[in-house]
């Protein structure tokens, strides 16, 4: 029963949020696009005041052509894929486990969720030093206890280590969402299947998994968007060395370390395109949910 009056009032109330976000999106994006077509090396005397030289698509070509590009794409895919695999598989397992009746459900839930609230710099440094340090880390103690040679995790198994750290942070998120989804499953359906003699594996495969498919898709999409831009975990552990330089980190290094703004901006445009491809799928799901 919206009147004309309340319509315009509504538009007015929406305006600040819309204008702010529009500015937040358009201003930096335009600047990045602009720089990506320019030669811009502040350390070599290029400056906005003197005008920047237009170089067309050169930065785009050089970013892809550099020897660091494909390894960074590979590192990104391996890290994102590895974390997704671990968090979704263990997340399903944990969600099913935590959905069973047992003593102390509330406390165990809290224990499982906790890593999600640990700030990225803390979890990365705690893992790097107290667990993965090749001399004094817990894992080194454990290895020595079993008579094995301790591993230099962050140099010899760097990508796996990053995957482990990031998975630890994101497993709670996947578990929590999948648990929420499992709890909405109609238990009568499961009981009927059980009475009809369906073994647990079949019940899981034909009832639980299809029921979870939507939640799994959402977990995968949301995590992908966040994982594509993990930064602090690499920044404080390997600093991008030992094959852990992701696309995000490569762009960061181009902009901050080598101060090649044009090249970094071209990389930024690639990253934005990549994120948008994932985003489109997520938005479809979220959007279809709005109509219900």
């Amino acid at each position, binding site marked *: 029963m919206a009147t004309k009056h309340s319509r315009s009032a509504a538009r007015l109330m*929406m305006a600040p949020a819309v204008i702010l976000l529009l500015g937040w999106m358009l201003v930096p994006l335009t600047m990045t696009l602009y720089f990506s077509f320019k030669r811009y090396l502040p350390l070599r005397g290029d400056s906005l005041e003197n005008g920047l030289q237009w170089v067309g698509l050169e930065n785009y070509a050089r970013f892809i052509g550099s020897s660091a590009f494909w390894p960074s794409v590979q590192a990104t895919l391996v890290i994102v894929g590895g974390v997704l695999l671990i968090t979704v598989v263990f997340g399903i397992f944990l969600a099913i486990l935590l959905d069973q009746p047992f003593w102390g459900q509330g406390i165990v839930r809290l224990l499982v969720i906790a890593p999600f609230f640990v700030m990225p710099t*803390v979890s990365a440094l705690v893992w790097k030093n107290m667990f993965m340090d090749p001399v004094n880390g817990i894992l080194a103690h454990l290895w020595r206890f079993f008579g094995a040679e301790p591993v230099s995790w962050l140099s010899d198994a760097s990508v796996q280590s990053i995957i482990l750290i990031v998975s630890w942070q994101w497993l709670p998120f996947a578990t929590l969402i999948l648990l929420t989804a499992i709890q909405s499953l109609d238990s009568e359906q499961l009981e009927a299947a059980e009475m009809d003699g369906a073994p647990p594996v079949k019940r899981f495969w034909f009832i639980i998994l299809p029921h979870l498919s939507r939640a799994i898709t959402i977990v995968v999409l949301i995590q992908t968007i966040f994982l594509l831009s993990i930064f602090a975990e690499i920044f404080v552990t390997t600093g991008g060395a030992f094959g852990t330089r992701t696309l995000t980190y490569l762009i960061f290094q181009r902009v901050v370390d080598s101060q090649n703004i044009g090249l970094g901006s071209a990389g930024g445009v690639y990253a934005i395109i990549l994120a948008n491809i994932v985003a489109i799928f997520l938005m479809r799901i979220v959007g279809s949910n709005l109509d219900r």
Partner: protein
Amino acid sequence: MARAVTTRRKVITTAAAWAVGLLIFFPIYWTILTSFKTEAQAINDPPLFFNFDWTLENYTLVQQRSDYMRFLWNSVIIAGGSTLLGIIVAVPAAWSMAFVPSKRTKDILLWMLSTKMLPAVGVLYPISLLFVQFNLLDTRFGLIIVLMLINLPIIVWMLYTYFKEIPVDILEAARMDGAGLKEEILYVLTPMAVPGIASTILLNFILAWNEAFWTLNLTAANAGPLTAFIASYSSPEGLFFAKLSAASTMAIAPILILGWFSQKQLVRGLTFGAVK
């Protein structure tokens, strides 16, 4: 109807669930424990679980080394300021989208969400440039603005999904009774919206507290929050496990407690209402 569960099965599930729970929680437990050890005890082989002299000295050392309190204060101001500012901007927007929807409401909501997916590194230089231009580099105000903007889509979305659940009939009844827009908001809507707003504040405070891209890249000594404070431990000097643990414990304890309260809202907030 709950299924009957045998005690045997319940015992097994309990053991398995607790084992997994404790394993996942172990790094946090170990950090807290180590913060009460001396540096020598912290690296003892075999690891010490209970048989050590508990000490609080690391906490004082951390404060002396780098003025922990100032970083904590920065974190509180930045996370709190950006959340409150975001709420002030988002409440009217979410209110109008939930109660006076138009054909474009859905598009606007989805577009807002899409701004959240912009990879931060893609706009790092422009933002730094603007910060230099407006003298915002290493200021709390600058970070408040940026964190408010990156969390604004989530705030709007969360509020929208909460407001959507408030029955419209009640608003219409109020209108029939002659309530204007002001009375509607003040006396009808606000009391019903408070729980949703509170959860939104809680979750976004946590997200802002833990944000570690902009806080690391846009601050230095002056406005650095706890994320930056902890990052300063990435280039260690001498034995530092116990001090790192004390610093980490202080950085995560407040938010861990808040986070445990917000676990229900977490799902709704981070899936944009797609999973409830």
